[in-house]
């Protein structure tokens, strides 16, 4: 397997270089998407299936779609500048980079990596779930997750505050196969996502990949020509749904205080249920947020023909 690791590492480095340094924006974006794909393999090799799942759903799927559609919306895709080979600042960068790399490697060499594996294992029975990663995410370090869901909501608000969504300059290709794809696949997305959510309590899975899968399904349906149901105005439930995960987490964090518990401390016995509720709400909001992020701006109040033509 050492050969596998070395090969993977080599490919990742090459792809990262392609993504950041070689001319041709499209080539870079594709390189980055493949980079995400191979990162999923790296996570597997590092025994982190949860992250592999998230990377497959978010990294390879959603980020790829975000990048590609942004690339399509850019007015200018040509690049200026001298080829990097001719840049004089390389005389600074090569030694500096080598020094940084050397320091990092030396430091990594010296790390004893104590880790908290034992501690997590010890408290796992109290956390209400059997998957340690889910336990850490939604119970032990739930405040991190609260802020993280907050970041998703905040990103949506930030993007909406930039203005109306920029319409793609050309409509998506009309193809009967594509429409069919949207119709056939969307139930599949929901199904797989429900399965991941259910698995999350005892095996890799949970709200994040599940939400990301549904979100990706939503993006795919939009691309397949489905009328996006997400509207921008305050009418309709969308703002509530977008903030549902965040609001639920906040409500739980405070709600337990009514039961005499400290902030965010789940009452014993209820932990499993609370985690499940949080996962459902968070998953829903993650899915909605990904679609909203993909639209890259505030959607129109009504998706009429005039909105599509604009």
């Amino acid at each position: 397997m050492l050969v596998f690791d070395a090969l993977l590492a080599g490919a990742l480095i090459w792809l990262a270089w392609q993504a950041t340094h070689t001319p041709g924006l499209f080539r870079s974006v594709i390189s980055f998407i493949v980079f995400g794909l191979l990162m999923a393999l790296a996570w597997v090799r590092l025994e982190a299936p949860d992250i592999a799942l998230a990377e497959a759903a978010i990294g390879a799927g959603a980020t790829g779609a975000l990048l590609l559609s942004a690339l399509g919306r850019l007015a200018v895709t040509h690049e200026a500048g001298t080829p990097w080979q001719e840049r004089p600042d390389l005389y600074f960068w090569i030694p500096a980079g080598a020094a940084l790399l050397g320091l990092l490697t030396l430091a990594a060499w010296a790390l004893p990596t104590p880790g908290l594996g034992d501690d997590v294992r010890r408290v796992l029975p109290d956390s209400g779930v059997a998957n340690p990663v889910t336990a850490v995410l939604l119970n032990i370090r739930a405040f991190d997750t609260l802020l993280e869901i907050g970041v998703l909501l905040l990103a949506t608000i930030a993007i909406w505050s930039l203005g109306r969504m920029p319409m793609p300059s050309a409509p998506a290709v009309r193809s009967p196969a594509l429409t069919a794809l949207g119709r056939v696949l969307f139930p599949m997305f929901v199904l797989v996502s429900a399965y991941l959510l259910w698995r999350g309590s005892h095996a890799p899975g949970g709200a994040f990949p599940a939400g990301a899968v549904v979100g990706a399904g939503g993006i795919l349906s939009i691309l397949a020509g489905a009328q996006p149901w997400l509207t921008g105005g305050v009418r309709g439930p969308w703002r509530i749904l977008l903030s549902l995960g965040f609001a639920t987490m906040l409500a739980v964090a405070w709600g337990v205080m009514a039961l005499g518990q400290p902030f965010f401390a789940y009452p014993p016995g209820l932990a499993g249920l609370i985690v499940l509720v949080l996962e459902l709400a968070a998953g829903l909001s993650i899915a909605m947020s990904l679609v909203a992020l993909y639209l890259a701006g505030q959607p129109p109040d009504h998706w009429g023909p005039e909105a599509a033509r604009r």
Partner: protein
Amino acid sequence: MIQPESLVVLLVGLPLLGAILTFVYPRAATAVTAACAAGMLGAASGVAYAVMVGGGWSQDLGGWAPPLGIGWQVDGLSASLLLLTAIVGSAGAAHRAVEGLDQPFFWPLWLFLWGALNALFLGADLFNLYVALEVLALAAVALIAMAGGGALPAAWRYLLASLLGSTVYLMGVALLYGRYGALDLGLIAGALEPDLPSALGAGLICLGLLLKAAVFPLHFWLPSAHGRAPTVVSAALSALVVAAAWYLLVRLWFGPFAGLQGPGPDWLFGLIGTGAMLWGGLLALVQRRLKMLIAYSTVSQLGFGLLVIPLAVGAGAESAWRGAVVLVLAHGLAKAGLFLAAGSIARAHGHDRLDALGGMGAGVVLPWLALVLAGASLIGLPPSGGFLGKWWMLQGALAAGGWVWVAAILLGTLLTAVYVFRMLSVVIRPAAPVPPAGGGGLPGALPAFVLALLALGLGLAAPVLEHLLSGDAMTGGPA
């Protein structure tokens, strides 16, 4: 009697709740924000009072003790900054509400910014601080971009600098976690040894924070972002967001990284601080726009705050430490006042070019008054907070025999005085006719005036401040 622990929960929960409400029901935004501001002022005062009475404390979130769980810590430093945030946040909100600009999504973003700041001032967990930093950065970027047009490139630069800073910070966190298996500040402080991984980790964390704090020579993104953002946003960014990065730097340096202190880093930080003070001051001197002048002054004033690192060791440490904190507080109040006043003036005149502004006259009396008072605090005229801070810092420096830093502080003060006088020289010009539709009159400038008064009066609160900050001096954590 309300537990101070629940007040702390309120400080983080309330703005986040408000952010949701103002997003879902924009109609009620002003009312919700007002309620949040009132609640936060009360909670922050309560927390500060609790610290004064009983000293600082730390609390675990979710009943999980570190190293597994996330902790919060409250001490004089964090309490005073929480209070500053509540004051500046409320004043900014009031200014905005009076201004009557109806931009969609301003309020949720503002409240997110506020909540992230509070979470930062409370956090005692390296990774949790990272997430809070990201929330802060995203909210700030969106708020800057609200000015549209020329603010977009500024927002972009800010976003990139901020993301780079937090990623570098996270790399440092990863190293420290690999070394000590803990993310909690207190646990790392207890275990720290000066070896390569710790030094590299701490170095990366400091580098990331220096970038976020726009410390010279990493300040390239700050002036345009602060100068072009909407007025209230400039105020919050200059008074609070930069202070948050400074706070984190100081908190970490005197807390977990205390084992790495030595003459080398001390001199490095001191020189950076001096450089920021002089360079920022010189550039502020040559600016042509009022808001840009104030923005560059932030770079310069931050240099004073950074001098705490070489000064707060050895003899006179406690005095220098107190002085630096008070200086940052006074700067926050004064700078927010300056920006709000400048915003009112710019609105009245329709521009903020220094050479074309008219003097104090009908319609712009209050803003100019606020500008004068806040400027006095910035220079450090007694009895302002700026005076008290510099006084304490100089005392500390003299006690330690740090003549270089004494000279640096005096030189920096001189520069500050020069650029503040350049700004204020406009006052004595003949009053220019203000277009009647300008609307920058009394109500909009009232928050600026209050802030300036507070900055000026802060020096009178010396005994209170001394008491508040004495419990946790230098330990970086609850005693």
